[in-house]
């Protein structure tokens, strides 16, 4: 059992995905504080207002209203106070060009939302564990996409 408490934020406008994520965290053998925001604007507001109480991991959907995931990622990585935060992309699409862009903009991992709850659980767990072990270092590119 991991004694650490993980502070996790999910930015996703999809309620179902948020509830899947919540259920996954409830089932994982870790302790977590979980927060969801519905779009990029809300995420950025939360990050700036909660400083220095920042999350351990940000899970970021790409297609969101008002401010999308890529914009958020770029802003976070440009901000001296936020740039160390590990960002995991959590999206449906699998576009090579977009993925390259995300990696070069500093995202840690890329999770393609699977259609199987067990796989979802596995892949989220993998991301949390990987980040908790290597802290803020961006992994090698070939490990960018997490598949389970």
């Amino acid at each position, binding site marked *: 059992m991991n004694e650490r408490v993980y502070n996790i934020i999910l930015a996703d406008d999809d309620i179902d995905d948020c509830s899947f994520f919540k259920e996954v965290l409830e089932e994982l053998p870790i302790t977590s504080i979980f927060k969801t925001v519905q779009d990029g604007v809300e995420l950025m507001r939360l990050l700036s207002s909660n400083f220095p109480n920042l999350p351990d991991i940000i899970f970021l959907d790409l297609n969101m209203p008002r401010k999308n995931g890529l914009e958020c990622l770029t802003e976070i990585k440009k901000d001296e106070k936020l740039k160390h935060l590990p960002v995991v992309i959590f999206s449906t*699409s699998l576009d090579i060009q977009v993925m390259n862009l995300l990696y070069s903009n500093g995202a840690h991992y890329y999770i393609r939302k699977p*259609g*199987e709850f067990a796989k979802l659980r596995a892949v989220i767990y993998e991301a949390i564990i990987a980040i908790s072990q290597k802290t803020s270092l961006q992994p090698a590119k070939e490990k960018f996409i997490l598949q389970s």
Partner: protein
Amino acid sequence: MVFSPNLEFLSGGGEMGKLTREKDWSTTSIGVPENWPQSLRTTLSIILNARFPMFLWWGPELICFYNDSYRPSLGQQGKHPSILGMAAKDAWPEIWDIIKPLIDQVLAGEEATWSEDQLIPIFRNGKMEDVYWTFSYSPVKDEAGQISAVLVTCTETTDKVVNFRQMKESSEQLSFAIDAAELGTFDYNPLTNKFSANKRLKEWFGLSADAEIDLSNAINAIAEKDRKKVTEAIQHAILFSSAGKYDIQYTIVHPVSKKETVVHAKGRAWFNEENIAYRFNGTLQDITEQKKFEHELEKQVNERTSELAENNIELEKINKELQSFAYISSHDLQEPLRKIQTFATQILEKEHANLSDNGKIKFQRMQTAAKRMQTLIDDLLAYSRTSTEERKFEITNLNTIIQEVKEDLKEDLQQKNAVMESDDMCEVRIIPFQFRQLMYNLIINSLKFSKEKQQPHIKIKTETDRGEKFNNDKLSYGTKYCHISISDNGIGFEPQYSEKIFDVFQRLHGKSQYSGTGIGLAIVKKIVENHNGVITATANLDEGATFDIYIPAV
């Protein structure tokens, strides 16, 4: 033959001399030659020995004499020799009405007659013939100074008249043709720079009806833009080296009315022994209407072409919109489907025990349906990606692609115990990612449609040659193609489906028999088209299938 001194005047004279001498004259009104008066003797002597055709009517009965030169005009099977010594009236009954007045005129003491190319039909060669003559009737006086005979000097001019008439007819026919064709005609003398033309041509050029004009007057009526061209063409045509040919189109502008006439001029030059042109003539055809029609046609063709181009642009736009629609919609369709699938796995994990047996079966079928929908969406996405994605061509050895696909399909190949044969593969200029997909789809198809009781055998071959060497009319002549053929020993299909199988969602088998969405071959075709290539399929039921791909060679 010896004559009595009296008849010396009848010596010589060829055939007619002989006939005259031998004839029994005692039965005629002028009696035997021994008694003929000196005037007759002298005249006859002149006639018989002359080389010019002559004829004589002597005495009150106008007894006929003629010489060898005249004789051919009587032809065969005619009056010769029977009219010798005959009275004129009996000898020439068919023309008596014509010649009697002339004879009477001469006998009455008037001047000798002169007739040129006069038609006097006579009986010869077994029939009445139209014969033309130039002749003169002149009086012959006897010892008493009385006019007692008519001497006819004549020459037959039938050939001349007939030729002349034929020439005239041809000339009339020509001018009729020129008129009917509404042609202008010109005749130019390069030596004098004088120029003559028919009325029509002069009207076009606005030239006076004078017989001859200076060429420069005509040149001035040619449209400015064509003037130089025409002058050069004429100068060229009158050079011996040009063989005299002249064929040109230009516009004439009437100097007063400014009416424009577009003409097609054709002509030729004639050269003398020194190879200098002495004549340059030809025709002009009015092609104004024809040109107008051509312009109109051209305009319409251009209009249609640009309309078509616009339609094409519009179509392309619609097509692109459709493709991005297909991409976006299938992308968005994934979302709810993924939810359904995730919820389903959650139920399966946590609530499965609460379901009745029937519920479990229905649930299983629901999952199968969802799975199928996912495949469909994935395939549709792949299909639309082949047209939206960036196309980066690279020169690649086909073998590399095949090895990669073999690696991807390792398990499937092992499971089916399949044999794959690919000899020397050529280098091709391709979009590697797309071509991998193409090979993948074709090979997995071969595996899918293999025969149950036979080891699948897939053969890949390549050859490079010109379009015309292959039996496919869609290939361009002279373009080099790489021909890739992929054949198997599977279940094949009926030949009538060889085109249809490339259509989207086209399936030849029930879903329960062979799974699939019917998009695989549509993707293959699209990829081949992206490579400016051609693909055909040939097969027979139960006899395997062959796919022939032709893409432009490296």
